[in-house]
């Protein structure tokens, strides 16, 4: 379990996260949602230690991550897989080399084993035949998928995905969601996914944390979210009139016109 207690983060005098307390369980797909600029990326980067929180504690399975030295953090990090919002693929390496990189660094598998593991992961993100291409030669959506393949190649215990399906078509999006949900359940991973894709929210939101203006505005699951009486959340999920109409028909808690 990852537990976060009163996490705060400021840049200069601007406070982005204003005290967030929540926890993420293993074997569940945990979603962090919020409008663009609400601090989802900052939140996840604090969790993995890329940004130093201003205050608050983060613990991984009981270990206080914020109190660890750089070297001790490294041992937790080898169990972390992360997809960055901008993919962060290594430019100088091909798709195959990118996904193989963690295997090369941290395992003593044979070349053949590594290649078959890489191909397995690339297949799971529905990306075959691009092995020898460089990141500059593939589309943004393809880069995302390579990023996901690289994040899961070592079967991490903790998986962080910053907007895994922004920029993907609905079909591939669904496939990626299914993949993330499957591996989370299969390997009892702690998966944390930033998203503002409502399909993902409804499809795999076993735990949803809604960030708004630096606070945790709401928390629940995809069953509860439809019946929310939180007005800010309501406006966030039913952003379009079309959705509001649908919801009215279904008889939700908040009726607006």
């Amino acid at each position, binding site marked *: 379990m990852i537990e976060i207690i009163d996490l705060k983060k400021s840049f200069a005098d601007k406070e982005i996260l204003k005290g967030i307390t929540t926890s993420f369980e293993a074997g569940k797909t945990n979603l962090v949602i919020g409008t663009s600029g609400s601090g989802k990326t900052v939140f996840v980067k604090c969790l993995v230690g890329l940004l130093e929180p201003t205050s608050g504690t983060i613990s991984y399975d009981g270990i206080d991550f914020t109190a660890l030295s750089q070297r001790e953090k*490294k041992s937790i990090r080898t169990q972390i897989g992360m997809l960055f919002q*901008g993919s962060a693929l290594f430019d100088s390496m091909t798709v195959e080399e990118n996904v193989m990189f963690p295997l090369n660094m*941290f395992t003593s598998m044979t070349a053949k084993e590594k290649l078959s593991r890489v191909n397995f992961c690339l297949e799971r993100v529905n990306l075959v035949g691009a092995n020898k291409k460089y990141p500059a030669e593939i589309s943004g959506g393809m880069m995302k998928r390579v990023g996901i393949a690289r994040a899961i190649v070592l079967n991490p215990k903790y998986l962080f995905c910053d907007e895994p399906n922004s920029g993907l078509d609905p079909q591939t999006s669904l496939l990626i969601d299914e993949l993330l949900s499957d591996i989370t359940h299969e390997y009892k991973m702690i998966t944390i996914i930033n998203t503002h894709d409502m399909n993902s929210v409804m499809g795999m939101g076993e735990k949803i944390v809604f960030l708004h203006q630096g606070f945790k505005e709401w928390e629940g699951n995809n069953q509860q979210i439809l019946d929310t009486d939180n007005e800010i959340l309501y406006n966030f999920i039913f952003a379009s009139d079309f959705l509001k109409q649908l919801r009215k028909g279904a008889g939700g808690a908040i009726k607006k016109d």
Partner: protein
Amino acid sequence: MTFLNHFGKYLLMLRDMFTRPENFYMYWKELLRQMNGIGVGSLIIVGVISLFVGAVTALQFAYQLGSTFFPEYLIGYIVRDTMIIELAPTLSGLVLAGKVGSNVAGELGTMRISEQIDALEIMGINPNGYLVLPKISAAVIIIPPLVVLSATLGIFGGYWAAENYGISPTNYQKGLLYLFDPFNVVIMTVKSVIFAFVIASVACYQGFYVKGGALDIGRASTRAVVFGSILVIVFDYIVALVMT
């Protein structure tokens, strides 16, 4: 930020390179890749410049000595020593401060901005160790031989120019062997090792800590070249002062 702040951060960057590699083979591969980029990638520019500088040195001295009674073979002697002591290391240093400095700062800056360095860190890899150390080591390993090559080509350039000017090749060769002091080669080597370290480490520092966007990568590259070049000249002076 003040100079001291930067210098402190620079020293920390150097200190943090030295952790146990996560995987020796991967570090070795990266070292070879950098040696190839820095060494092979700079062969042509260093070679061409050295040939011509040697040629020009020979011509200039031949011209200056033309109306005096100095013996012809002095041309070979002068070209040899100026190339070895000063021109080969310093000119190569300046050329490489431009080429390698901008290249390294640009590569690291791009990796920083596009979060590739963060990605390494998340994997549990020490980015200083995996990115900075191989670059600095590659420079220190490959630049001294490049400087030796530069001196050699400069002497050849001088030979060719002197012959065209009408100086007999036998006299030039005699000059090359005249009063040869092996210590000059030591000076050349010391200079080239120091220059290599300065160029690569300054460029790594500029690239590694880039903040902002694509424009800042360009600025970091420029700073790498400017500071690298200035430091090459400063250290050239310091080495000359200490060793001669």
